[in-house]
């Protein structure tokens, strides 16, 4: 049997990998392109600033945009102090021990729980047992727990990458530990922490399963935290699944995907700048 030249195989393999990577990237481009091309004709100021009529068949999506912003910002408001505090504790106040391992185990496990189980938990705990009903508050608390691991991980990484010298200089100026963290470590780690916060906002905006069973799907704008409301993702899901309006569904999808992509691109940009600062 004649042996095939290994260099020939090498060339073939290289071509295959190039094509494969090209194919995967084109999937991404096609997905985004479809959403943009199909959704673009339906997105106009009226679509963004008007209220939906007739279950969303006509009118705009303003309440769901407002609901999304309320949900994302309030969740961040709760999750950021908890997450950054946890990260500070893990990096500045302890050595690796059974206790930190236990906390890390908790964070990792939370990160691995699928969103439908968050929905199930939020539904039974916040909506039923704590009698919040389908409300913005129940949604916010559920999403807070869901995004907590992302904020903890990114903040921990950001705080760890702050050079030791900065801390030592601060101590040598007789600053206390907390003063050092507050005035030296946190400002230096801010871009990394911000990245985590933005990625979490992206996740909250795109989430459906955990939101629909906690915040509900009322079409009205939530005026208090005890009101039910729907996010863009939930609105889009209901439009698409119940076949209410394909046009409105595409329009909503465009606004939804565009918001998430721009938040994530911004997050990567901030991270990139932070990395180049220290290396």
């Amino acid at each position, binding site marked *: 049997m004649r042996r095939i030249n*290994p260099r020939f*195989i*090498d060339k073939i*393999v*290289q071509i*295959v*990998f*190039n094509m*494969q*990577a090209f*194919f*995967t990237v084109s*999937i*991404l481009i096609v*997905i985004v392109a*479809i959403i943009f091309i199909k959704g673009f004709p339906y997105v106009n100021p009226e679509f963004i600033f008007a209220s939906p009529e007739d279950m969303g068949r006509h009118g705009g999506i303003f309440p769901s945009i407002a609901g999304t912003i309320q949900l994302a910002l309030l969740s961040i408001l709760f999750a950021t102090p908890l997450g950054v*505090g*946890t990260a500070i*504790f893990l990096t500045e*106040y302890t050595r690796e021990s059974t206790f930190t391992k236990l*906390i890390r185990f*908790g*964070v*990792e*496990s939370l990160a*691995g*729980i*699928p*969103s*439908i*189980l*968050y*929905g*199930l*938990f939020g539904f*039974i*705990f916040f909506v039923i047992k704590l009698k919040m009903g389908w409300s913005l508050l129940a949604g916010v608390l559920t999403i807070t*727990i869901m995004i*907590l691991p992302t904020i*903890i991980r990114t903040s921990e990484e950001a705080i760890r990458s702050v050079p030791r010298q900065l801390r030592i200089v601060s101590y040598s100026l007789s600053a*206390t530990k*907390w003063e050092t963290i507050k005035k030296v470590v946190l400002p230096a780690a801010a871009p990394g922490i911000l990245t985590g916060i933005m990625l979490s906002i992206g996740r909250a*905006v*795109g*989430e*459906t*399963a955990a939101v629909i*069973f906690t915040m509900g799907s009322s079409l009205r704008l939530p005026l208090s935290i005890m009101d039910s409301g729907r996010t863009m993702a939930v609105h*889009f*899901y209901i439009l*698409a*699944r119940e076949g209410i309006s394909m046009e409105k*569904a595409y329009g909503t*999808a465009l606004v*939804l*995907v565009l918001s*998430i*992509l721009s938040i994530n*691109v911004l997050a*990567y940009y901030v991270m990139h700048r932070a990395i180049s600062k220290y290396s």
Partner: protein
Amino acid sequence: MIEKALLKERFVKWVLIAFALSSLLFLFLIFIFILAEGLPLFLKVGVGNIIGGFKWAPTRGSFGIFPMIVSSFLVTIGALAIGAPMGLSCAIYLSEYSGKKTQMLLKPALELLAGIPSVVYGFLGVIYIVPLVRNYLGGSGFSLLSTSIILGVMILPTIISISFDALISVPKTYREGSFAMGATKWQTIYKVILPSAKSGILASFILGMGRAIGETMAVIMIAGNALKIPGSILDPLRTLTGNIALELSYASGDHRLGLFSTGVVLMVIIMILNYIANFGIKRKIAK
């Protein structure tokens, strides 16, 4: 003055400990409340009748979720069959073939795939994949195959980014040693790099599986949600996650408890997968 500062230091420390403990508290609450709702039915109806039962008629006292367990595994394996080769070869391309510049551009771009919400994937699946399957292969199109394709794409970012990290962490000296022996690039990748990065790559597959088995919204839109074990890849099916999401909004009484029992089974499967993945990653780091 100094005493006040010390007091403040101590106060801050305790607040931070409380914050750190909150993650554990939340995890505990999630476990307790899902178990508290899900376990009573296991005792009442019997573990075998739920896990091994074929019939799901929760309003008439049948809570069999065996077909859904099988279906969940089938879509997960299907997703892996599509996502694993694509994801791994993309990771190999990024770590071994592409230039630094392409790598810096492509990696975040591919990670953006993860940001696209699952409802959007489900929607595109219904509009484009389902008709394609229906017209060319038959059946209704709402099928194991369509679901596997969409889930396969959805787990790509997980597989690419984790196996990329595993490949890139193989020491440069391994590659140089192999090249010095006269091996070609592919021989080096196949015989040296892949075996060294094996556990990290495996972990990426298992985490991808965890994502696929936990995925909900995309699945209920394209799987067809039929209550039986699919006989072919063109048959519709209902997963564990789909069962919960489809019925939770209107279920009450034992019916609702049945959905929490479904949640308990899902939670156990996810825990096992995460444990295996973490174990794999730890072994890699230890090496």
